[in-house]
């Protein structure tokens, strides 16, 4: 089912958590709300669930064209997985999953045998067969998360909400579960919104990414869109590493207050003066554990520090070493001007002859 939320605002006392935020989620999509802590993403998720009420004057909220703003969280049929799962600690896995069915009014409640069957199906779906009798305290973090997921799915929710689904897991389990969740979503095709502060997670997992900052939506788009065409300095800084470069680059039509950004992998390092419009810099440090080496550079003019990424092989062929004087070329520069205009400049700083 599709979700449509329009002009949502929410404040807690004097703190503005959401300011005129709108969100459109087409049916069956997997959407990430991503942003730093305090950006309002969890508040938005809780408003969708009905656990928080938007401020007066906010627009309506629709699930699949039906207005749900007036419905309580109980009646919205939303499946939600909390960051710390919120499993009922004194109930077994099976009782947890059956909860949403067992509390239904007598007329709508499936018979006991049917509930047992549903629980078994769900346990199979989340690959936890055989753990029905365990208590949540006896499960690993990843298993608990899947129990929470099965419990949320038991009520056949119209939408699924996940709050920092991988936040409480260690790095290895995180990666595995990420892949598993993506495949799981392909299978069940349920409209899903998840919250994360990890941009990598958002870009890898979601069909569409909603970047939030300071109670507002900064940009909405596919992972590739927001990465390749970041709409604001915040987005480019938040999604992946980036260098902010002081102006003073010749050869590009730049205004005085333009903000320039270069991704570390777009910096090319030449060991000697090869001519062209390159910047002169000195290598301060080379950190070469991993497939890509991180090179810290200092511009000679102005003393600015830049981070570059160079393939290990290239590091060796070019014989780069600490303390060396080098020339830098930028393959792509992202420019944000004060007027709000944004553009890429390609090969503005290039070795002589390639321009």
């Amino acid at each position, binding site marked *: 089912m599709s979700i449509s939320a329009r002009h949502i605002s929410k404040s807690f006392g004097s703190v503005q958590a959401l300011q005129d935020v709108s969100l459109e989620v087409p049916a069956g999509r997997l959407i990430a709300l991503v942003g730093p802590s305090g950006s309002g993403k969890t508040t938005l998720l809780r408003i969708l*669930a*009905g*656990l928080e009420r938007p401020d007066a004057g906010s627009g309506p909220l629709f699930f699949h064209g039906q207005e749900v703003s007036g419905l309580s*969280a*109980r009646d*919205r049929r*939303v*499946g*939600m997985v*909390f960051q*710390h799962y*919120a*499993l*009922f*600690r*004194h*109930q077994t896995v099976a009782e947890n999953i059956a*909860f*949403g069915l067992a*509390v*239904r009014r007598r007329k709508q409640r499936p018979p006991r045998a049917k509930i047992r069957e549903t629980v078994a199906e769900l346990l199979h779906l989340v690959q936890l067969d055989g753990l029905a009798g365990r*208590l949540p*305290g*006896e*499960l690993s973090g990843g298993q608990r998360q899947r129990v929470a997921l099965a*419990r*949320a799915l*038991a*009520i056949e929710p119209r939408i699924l909400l996940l709050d920092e689904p991988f936040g409480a897991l260690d790095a290895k389990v995180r990666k595995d579960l990420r892949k598993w969740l993506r495949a799981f979503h392909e299978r069940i095709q349920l409209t899903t919104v998840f919250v994360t502060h990890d941009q990598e997670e958002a870009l890898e997992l979601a069909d569409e990414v909603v970047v939030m900052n300071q109670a507002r939506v900064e940009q909405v788009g596919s992972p590739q869109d927001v990465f390749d065409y970041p709409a604001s300095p915040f987005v480019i800084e938040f999604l992946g590493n980036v260098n902010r470069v002081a102006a003073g680059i010749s050869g590009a039509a730049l205004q005085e207050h333009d903000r320039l950004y270069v991704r570390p992998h777009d910096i090319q390092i030449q060991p000697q003066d090869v001519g062209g419009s390159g910047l002169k810099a000195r290598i301060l440090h080379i950190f070469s554990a991993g497939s890509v080496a991180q090179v810290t550079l200092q511009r000679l003019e102005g003393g600015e520090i830049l981070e570059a990424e160079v393939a290990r092989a290239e590091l060796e062929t070019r014989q780069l070493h600490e303390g060396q004087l080098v020339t830098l070329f930028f393959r792509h520069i992202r420019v944000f001007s004060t007027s709000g205009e944004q553009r890429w400049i390609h090969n503005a700083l290039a070795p002589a002859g390639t321009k």
Partner: protein
Amino acid sequence: MPLMLQDPPLIRRALIAGALLVLGILLVVPLAAVFTEALRLGLGTALTALTEPDALHAILLTVLMAAICVPLNLVFGLAASWAVAKHDFWGKSLLVTLIDLPFSVSPVIAGLMLVMVFGLHSFLGGLLEGWGLQVIFALPGMVLATLFITFPFVARELIPAMQATGREEEQAAYLLGANGWQILWRVTLPNVRWALLYGVLLCNARAMGEFGAVSVVSGHIRGETNTIPLQVEILYNEYNFVAAFALAAVLTLLALLTLSAKSVIEWQVRRQRAHPEAERLTNRVPLHQLPR
């Protein structure tokens, strides 16, 4: 090598001995005295004293007081702690202060307040008297006094327990379609059941043992408004030591029973926490046994 966080053995032993001595003088000796005094003229005499009609009535009245006050305060305490721990509302800190009020008001003052409000010379007391309901120097006043004194016990135990479990489980239950009662019975209460039982035990112990407030409102009518503590006082003042101490021993036994029940509960809670996950969190392995 274990960390050197320990005092020299001599000082350690001296401290332990000191603590035991104080404990002995303040607790063990008086407790023993109660039982020896009660049994000084033999078990038979003590039992005879206990089966006196007035004594029996005092015991029954004490049990009745507890039977009325504990369930009522269980409900009040549950409602108050649920409101405080799981909801935000205007005036919450005022409510918390009010819950603690009986702890800070002297029981005698509490009794006097009731006499002021419900005494024969007060407006309310006169009105109720007109309808044939006597509050002061009768059971209703004693129940009110005991209710007031024992009000905080259940709530005080439950609020921290409920706050510790957070609100997410309740929110999850709500999203899954449970109504308020279902959330309370299926999620909230099972999570705090030991704290609840503990609070009830403390409330019960105090309801049976309360002296000051009840003393003011009861009127000390033998065989009518005397609970065990009041009867003990009267008997003692009449130099009827065996009877006084025999009754006191009954109350003491009830207290010891409560204490052992409490220990069993605490043992249960510890055992429950011994789940593999909890064990890692509570770090039960002594520092010097950790692998390094």
